[in-house]
């Protein structure tokens, strides 16, 4: 039986591991706006994303005081200040180590990490890949605007080859990374794409990602009206001419008959074929843009696996591991097993 470190009351492992769910309707998404005024450019897709995050939080009714929103550095990085939950605006490229460290320590926190495409896929790429190798139960939202917004519009790693948005003096001669394919290849267990101005789809996707037990990635296409004059709001709302006539630019994967969810994670054949299909879908060169879940699989989380290696975690969450007596403040750890090999 663990003890709540704050209230010093006993709590079950279940209680110590799950964010409290409030009664439906107790908090509206508008109450999840902090009193800081967002200073993004007018028309910036970031407004839509933060809105959707708030809606997803309200939809799930997760306790904001047991939720922590981590961000990287960039225009997107400011998001944590605009949300009424614990907020942590970390370092450029390092949002994942922070978020993962917090979640591993205190599994009771619902942890959402968010940041720019430069932040996550440029400087943060090492953590991006390695986070996939540990299926820790957090959600990671990438604001994909194809530019480094806050430093004035340089190419981000998702900018297309030879593309030249107005902020670039010369065309981009780097090939883009594909965040979806990268995430699937790295071991993320939930990989989805949405669009900043599709409020409903985005909120629903975020809600599914947060509800997913494991490492979830949501790649959000985000217009940056100031620097990216190629993939603008207009671009996304301009219909596409197809063989079946004029169709909206974006479409929902499930409506198109694609299902990236693995039904039986123990069926290796299903897993491998779905994984390959998901990668194929991620690479699909089409004029339209598919939104939805590209890949999802339920697997043991890192937290679960840790319990095999560290038996004490079958009883306590890490932050609740007892190490002192709150009355006397005396340490309670018996060092004997550690001293044995040295004793004379």
């Amino acid at each position, binding site marked *: 039986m663990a003890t709540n470190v704050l209230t010093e009351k006993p709590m079950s492992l279940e209680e110590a591991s799950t964010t409290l769910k409030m009664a439906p309707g107790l908090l509206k998404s508008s109450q999840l706006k902090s009193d800081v005024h967002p200073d993004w450019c007018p028309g910036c897709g970031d407004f839509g994303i933060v809105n959707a995050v708030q809606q997803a939080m309200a939809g799930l009714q997760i*306790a*904001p*005081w047991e939720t922590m929103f981590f961000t990287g550095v960039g225009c997107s990085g400011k998001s944590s200040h605009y949300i009424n939950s614990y907020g942590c605006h970390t370092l450029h490229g390092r949002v994942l180590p922070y978020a993962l460290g917090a979640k591993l320590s205190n599994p009771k926190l619902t942890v959402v990490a968010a940041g720019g495409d430069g932040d996550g896929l440029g400087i943060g790429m090492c953590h991006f890949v390695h986070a996939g190798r540990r299926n820790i139960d957090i959600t990671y939202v990438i604001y994909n605007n194809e530019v480094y917004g806050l430093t004035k519009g340089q190419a981000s790693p998702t900018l297309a080859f030879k593309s030249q948005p107005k902020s670039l003096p010369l065309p981009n001669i780097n090939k883009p990374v594909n965040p979806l394919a990268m995430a699937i290849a790295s071991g993320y267990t939930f990989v989805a794409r949405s669009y900043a101005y599709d409020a409903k789809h985005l909120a629903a996707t975020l809600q599914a990602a947060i509800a997913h037990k494991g490492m979830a990635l949501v790649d959000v296409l985000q217009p940056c009206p100031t620097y990216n004059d190629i993939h603008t709001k207009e671009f996304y709302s301009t219909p596409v001419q197809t063989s079946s006539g004029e169709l909206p630019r974006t479409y929902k994967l499930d409506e198109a008959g694609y299902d990236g969810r693995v039904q039986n994670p123990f069926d290796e054949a299903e897993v491998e074929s779905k994984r390959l299909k998901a990668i194929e879908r991620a690479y699909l060169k089409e004029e339209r843009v598919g939104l939805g879940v590209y890949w999802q699989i339920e697997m043991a989380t890192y937290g679960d696996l840790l319990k095999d290696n560290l038996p004490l975690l079958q009883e306590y969450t890490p932050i609740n591991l007892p190490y002192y007596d709150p009355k006397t*403040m005396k340490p309670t750890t018996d060092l004997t097993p550690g001293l044995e090999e040295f004793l004379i």
Partner: protein
Amino acid sequence: MTLKNDISWMIGGPQGTGVDSSATLFARAMSVAGYWVYGKREYHSNIKGEHSYFHLRVNTEPVRSIIDPVHLLATFEDSTASIHGHEIVADGALIYDPKVTKPEHLEIEKSVKLYPIEFDAIINQMAEETGQHPAKLAIVKNTIAVAASMALLGVSLDAMEGALKGLFTGRRAKLVDMNMSAAKKAYAAMEALGNLESFAYRMAAVTKMPEKNSRLVMNGAAACGLGKLKAGCRMQTYYSITPSVDECIFLENHPEFGALVVQLEDELAAVNMVNGSALTGMRASTATSGPGLSLMSEGIGWAGINEVPSVVFNYQRGGPSTGLPTRSEQAELLFAIHAGHGEFPRIVMAPGDQHECFEDGFYSFNYAERYQTPVIVLVDKALANCTQTIDRFDEESLVIDRGDIVKPDFEWPGENATPEDALKAIAKFKRFAEAESGISPRVLPGTIGKLFWMTGDEHDEYGHISEEPENRIMMHEKRFRKLDAALKGIPQDHQYKLIGPETADVTLVAWGSTKGAIEDALKVLEAKGIKANFLHIRLMHPFPTEAVTKILSRAKTIINIESNFTAQLAQLIKLRTGIDIPHVVLKYTGRPVSETEVVDAVLEVTQKKTGKVVLTCGH
């Protein structure tokens, strides 16, 4: 021959041939016999094949350093005698395998006694007795060399048995008998050589046998790890690097404490995950060495501006760059104090011996949480990898200090909660409130009704970004006031120690791991008629300027001793106190300073007024 209270023993061989285990066995056996041991380990950045050696000293009283001369060199292969033979003193001894080592080809003192041991004969005999293949028994060569050494030193094999039983437990307990069999044969073979009593360096017995289980044969890395465990550190991140990885391996070998030891993709992840963990209220730390500290500079700064109690142990090794990765140095003092762009408060501590390693392992978390600021602890390879017989740690006096943590004012009412409760539950809190001491009450995320934010940007009291000049001034000053608080709040003996007489003719100044050699040297110097005392500084930042000034102002001849090129402590002292230490003793070969070197250097300075003495001993 009079028996000796102090002898110096060495064993060597290619990396991977058991030099380490031999030394551990010897150290434990001698400790079981009641002696006190100190040993240093030297090895290349290599897994197998390059020459490595262990240099140990055994004394009837506690010792903390080596002396350079070797009284007894024990070898079981050919390279060690040729590399180290010349280090054996007159009347010293060499134990060797006559099959591979030809003493006539060695560069050794004429008077050195030669003790050939037929390693193969012993092994073959064992093979016959047990029916095992001789190749499988080759590993007992170490035991043979150790047992032969004990015979020559006049120490009974009972101690060996005790040591083996301590080393081989559980599944490996059956190895005790095999090794004892080898040891007995080696002991007998030595006795058969005869006249062992004539050896000039036989050990006197200890006068008072220490109580069983009252002492430890310990290395610094494990001492740090144990201190951390006692402190409640349950999150240790790392990216493996020599020599800090030894602390991590020790922790990983003890899953029973429940501590998460997380091997990460790089040091950037390691330090930032510590920040992410520590901000939740976990006691979290990482251990690294030079290159890792460079990479961690940015993350430490984030902890600084966000007042997060992250603990970073940096095990210094020979630099710069990859440098001398398995050798020791004390060249990251000024870097640790200035690491990270911009200005923020930090605490830098440097333990001088294994007890201080344990203490700093423990107290670093208290100070980090009390002052809500990152703590860097500077250990070094010499301290991490040395083997020493010490008294058990004092665990009784330890008290946890978590600093000023705000408890929730109320509890979530549960199902009956009203929208008003919900609003109260998401009330915000001035986590970074202006505070005279610089220390604002700290909230742990998860606390109801006290939301706050963090950011690497300058921020207001709630933690929101602020570029307002007035707020900036307030916050910057508030944070830096914590250094004053720390200097007041950290007990004096964690700041510095003046060892020896209050007044002396010579005052030695040092920090970190050179402590042992200097402490040991004090007695020798005294015997040589030099009245010296020793200021060992332990809190490197904030610096105990007043106390150091006071002590050094009344000192007559000041000598600064450290293992680096640019005399970093002397620089720091000049910077903080204005006192320009006229004599520095420096060593930058990556090999630790010995008692012998300290004594000689002090003699040189006192006799010749030398400004800078460069030490070079040790292979």
